[in-house]
């Protein structure tokens, strides 16, 4: 078990081969990933690698304009082109064809979200026509031959512009672009706290729109067998069962005659959660042409359709007394939702944002208002972090500003307001109950690793030499494994957020396990096998984990929100324990003992105090399937299924520190150090944990310094390719020093908290705080992300006359 604290682990974590690890130590070992040999040799099968007999290729015509009326569309020339099998437009659709939204809010103005546009175009990704052709190139060629007549309309891209009186209305039937108006916390108490405090510090920030950028663009292969009405869909998905359920409704196909599979999936970061028009159209088209249909998004198409993240305009006010005590927090956010509601979009800027505004602090009064706005940009939904980075950013920037206001060290003000370890469980004023934490410890460890006191001296010296060094703290909290289902139902979720896990012994004593989680790069096969090897005492190599197939797995909710270990892993633990209990009864029957006297350890059942009276779980498995001699009241077989519904969220936390040098003459930001001390609870595989932290930080670095989806005034995405949208390159990301503390979560049997999003949540404000700290002598108190060289240069006075 990984409860031993791997503290001070800033050295590179060395992996071990599973064969070299004792069974008792498998949980918590940094073993190599079993996924990797096939990924490293080109044997892996991604969706676009799939070739089926008679397969056709599909391409979709999207809009030239972000906002327009579709006056006329003529596909006759395209239909005549070589290799074209069929061309379809909205008038050919014989199904309901509206994408559902999976989260409701009291004030939500839900709008129709058609899979193909009949009349009104609301963003560039809207589908106007689709072509099915024999060859990939032919399908794309034919798109150019579709003649479209548009009547262009004025577009709006920023939430505040969209909410203005004279803005063009995107969904005319609603008469407004306001999608919802939501609040949390106590308005009156917070107002009073702000009035009573010694100081109130304000800050306006834009948390820019980001494109998730899984390196594998979305893709679908659909195959329809009319003889038994079976629709087999393989696609880039983070949640095949959810896709099956939603798509069944959209294309009117019976859910039980539909199979959705995730082949190898090349990253997701949220973008492959949502149900898009694309997979519905590919599946529908496969039924029309009665041949397999493949669609592979181009990168530009991905940029025009993959749900984007963030998109907040926020005004924040923090009340702080002269002694550094934080008295209250007020946050007013206008959230960009894009043209339509995406699958979970109403939940992101509300329950996944406002509820995290207490951060790591005891703040008695918090009030948050969020107005959602429809605009002509790509729909906005969950992207790695999803609401929590936005919350963490505004708090951690405001806390820094508060420290400046009362002339206090940024680390000291944090310590002064931290929750203490004995405050847990702690209920915040914004409806969360934190499970456990030791925030002082992660901050202190980070300060030690970065050499804080020594840094301040160096900073002083450097300033005298005309060099600008800065340090930035980010003490973040994250909420993962959103749960329990009953609660999320009350909050508006259209789904339960449990997970299923099936553990099945074969008669020969090996194990196949099915998880409703659906990994796409996280190494689930490895970690889940580690969990089961530990629970069942079976060799790691004798366990096969199956994910991503609705035919094989009972049900599933999928992988997002850093939930797979906490929820999916726990489901497998519970099933393994049920299996062991059944096996214990069989073993007791075989050993002629009372089940209560039979102990289980490392795969062996043994009568207490009688070491010679024992049997292995493998032998028991054979007995369970032979069923020649099992207890009378027992069914044969050895398997168990669990639908695990957690009792609460889990709350990972940590401190990230960035140390930068800024050149005010060029605006260049260079990392001198980056330290991350994270507490994600128990660690199943520390090397995988480290990789998640690294990757998360890189995306946070991207948001802080480079990335942003930019639209012109007409709603045209002008960062439409990887040449224009700056995904961080190898030399953009600093060498990261990662350490961890371990505060197990009491909420689940593994004591895990979740790690997928931590780095992305933590990094941006660490970097922005560091750059602002560096330029403090030049009077800089805020710079909007991304901190491009030009923005930094301007903030530092460049270009001033």
């Amino acid at each position, binding site marked *: 078990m990984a409860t031993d604290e791997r503290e001070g682990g800033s050295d590179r974590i060395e992996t071990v081969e599973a064969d070299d690890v004792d069974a008792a130590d498998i949980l918590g070992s940094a073993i190599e990933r079993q996924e990797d040999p096939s990924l490293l040799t080109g044997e892996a099968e991604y969706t676009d690698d799939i070739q089926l007999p008679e397969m056709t290729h599909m391409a979709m015509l999207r809009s030239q304009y972000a906002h327009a009326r579709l006056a006329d569309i003529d596909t006759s020339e395209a239909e005549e082109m070589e290799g074209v099998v069929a061309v379809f437009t909205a008038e050919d659709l014989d199904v309901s064809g509206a994408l559902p939204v999976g989260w409701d809010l009291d004030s939500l103005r839900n709008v129709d979200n058609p899979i193909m546009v009949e009349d009104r175009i609301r963003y560039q990704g809207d589908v106007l026509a689709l072509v099915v052709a024999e060859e990939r190139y032919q399908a794309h060629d034919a798109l*150019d*031959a579709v003649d479209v007549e548009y009547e262009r309309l004025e577009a709006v891209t920023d939430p505040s512009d969209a909410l203005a009186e004279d803005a063009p209305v995107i969904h005319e039937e609603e008469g407004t672009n306001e999608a919802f108006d939501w609040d949390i916390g106590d308005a009156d108490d917070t107002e009073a706290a702000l009035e009573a405090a010694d100081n109130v510090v304000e800050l306006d920030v834009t948390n820019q729109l980001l494109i998730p950028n899984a390196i594998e663009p979305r893709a679908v292969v659909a195959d329809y067998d009319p003889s038994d009405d079976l629709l087999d869909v393989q696609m880039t998905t983070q949640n095949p069962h959810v896709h099956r359920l939603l798509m069944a409704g959209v294309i009117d196909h019976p859910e039980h005659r539909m199979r959705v599979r995730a082949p190898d999936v090349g990253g997701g970061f949220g973008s492959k959660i949502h149900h898009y028009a694309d997979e519905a159209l590919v599946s529908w088209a496969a039924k029309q042409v009665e041949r397999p249909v493949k669609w592979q998004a181009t990168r530009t198409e991905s940029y025009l359709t993959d749900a984007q993240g963030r998109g907040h305009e926020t005004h924040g006010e923090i009340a702080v007394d002269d002694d550094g005590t934080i008295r209250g927090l007020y946050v007013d956010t206008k959230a960009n939702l894009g043209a339509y509601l995406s699958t979970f979009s109403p939940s992101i800027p509300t329950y996944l944002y406002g509820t995290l505004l207490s951060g790591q602090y005891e703040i008695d009064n918090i009030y948050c208002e969020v107005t959602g706005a429809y605009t002509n940009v790509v729909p906005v939904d969950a992207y790695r972090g999803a609401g929590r980075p936005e919350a963490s950013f505004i708090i951690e920037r405001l806390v820094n500003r508060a420290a400046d206001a009362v002339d206090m060290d940024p680390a000291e003000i944090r310590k002064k307001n931290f929750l203490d370890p004995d405050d847990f469980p702690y209920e915040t004023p914004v409806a969360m109950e934190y499970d456990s934490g030791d925030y002082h410890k992660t901050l202190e460890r980070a300060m030690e690793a970065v050499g804080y006191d020594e840094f301040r001296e160096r900073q002083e010296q450097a300033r005298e030499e005309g060099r600008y060094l800065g340090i930035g703290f980010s003490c973040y909290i994250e909420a993962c494994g959103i749960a329990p289902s009953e609660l999320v139902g009350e909050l508006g979720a259209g789904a339960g957020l449990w997970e299923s896990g099936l553990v099945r012994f074969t008669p020969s004593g090996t194990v196949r396990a099915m998880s409703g989680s659906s990994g796409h790069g996280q190494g689930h096969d490895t970690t889940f096998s580690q969990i089961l090897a530990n629970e069942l005492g079976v060799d790691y190599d004798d366990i096969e984990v199956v994910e991503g197939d609705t035919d094989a797995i009972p049900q599933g909710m999928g992988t997002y929100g850093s939930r797979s270990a906490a929820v999916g892993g726990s489901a497998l633990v519970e099933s393994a324990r049920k299996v062991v209990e059944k096996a214990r009864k069989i073993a007791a029957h075989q050993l002629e003992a009372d089940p209560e006297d039979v102990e289980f350890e490392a795969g062996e059942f043994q009568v207490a105090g009688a070491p010679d009276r024992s049997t292995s779980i493998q032998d028991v498995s054979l007995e369970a399937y032979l069923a020649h001699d099992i207890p009378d009241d027992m069914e044969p077989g050895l398997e168990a299924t669990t639908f695990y519904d957690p009792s609460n969220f889990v709350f990972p936390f940590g401190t990230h520190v960035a140390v930068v040098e800024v050149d005010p003459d060029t605006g260049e930001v260079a990392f001198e150090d980056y330290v991350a001390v994270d507490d994600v609870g128990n660690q199943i595989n520390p090397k995988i944990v480290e990789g998640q932290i690294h990757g998360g930080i890189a995306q946070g670095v991207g948001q802080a310094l480079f990335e942003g989806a930019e639209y012109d005034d007409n709603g*045209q*995405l002008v*960062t439409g390719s990887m*040449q*224009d949208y700056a995904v961080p390159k190898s030399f953009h990301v600093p060498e990261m020093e990662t350490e961890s503390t371990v505060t197990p979560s009491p909420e689940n049997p593994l004591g895990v908290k979740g790690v997928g999003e931590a780095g992305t949540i933590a990094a941006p404000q660490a970097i922005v705080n560091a750059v602002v700290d560096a330029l403090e002598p030049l009077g800089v108190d805020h710079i909007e992300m991304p901190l491009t060289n030009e923005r930094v240069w301007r903030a530092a006075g460049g270009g001033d006359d």
Partner: protein
Amino acid sequence: MEFSGTVSIDGTTTEEVWLALSDPVMIKQALPGCQFLVECEDEDPDFDALAASAPEEDPPTLPEASAEDIAERAFEEGGHYAALMEISVGSVSPSFETVVTIEEREFPRMHAAGEGSASSSSFEMSSGMELAESEDGVDVEWWAEADVFGRVAQMGQRVINPVANRVVGRFFDQVEKQLQDVSTDSESSGGLRSRVSSLF
């Protein structure tokens, strides 16, 4: 997107430049990638028919053409003109079916607005110019405001700005070259400049 600039053309007069920039044939020749440029009746011409009827060879321009011929075919305020423009942008070379309306034309100022559309991209633009005498000749002050849509727009300003600069640069280079020819011709014959002047 907004662009503007001033182009200086030496050794010429505002009247000559005005006449040259009033000549659809010369404009067509100066515009890189312009397949044809003809007057049309409304803002929604049939480009296939126009392409079929466009003359194979351009009539002569200055200095060979007479000033009167040019005055005859010169842009007219309120007139619509259709052009087929092939412009390479990055890896694509869309052909834009473009219609321009002359919104104002009064010496020394001209203002035009138009739209162009290709299979996967389109643009809308408004542009103008004003001529002013300079010490050595003529300054052409020009500005353009363009909105770009579709595939070309997605390439961003990284691609579009150089393309716009290339088109504008080549256009004025060509205009300047032709006007130099006019000047040279005027100096040798002594006749054209006075004939041009007489038209104003």
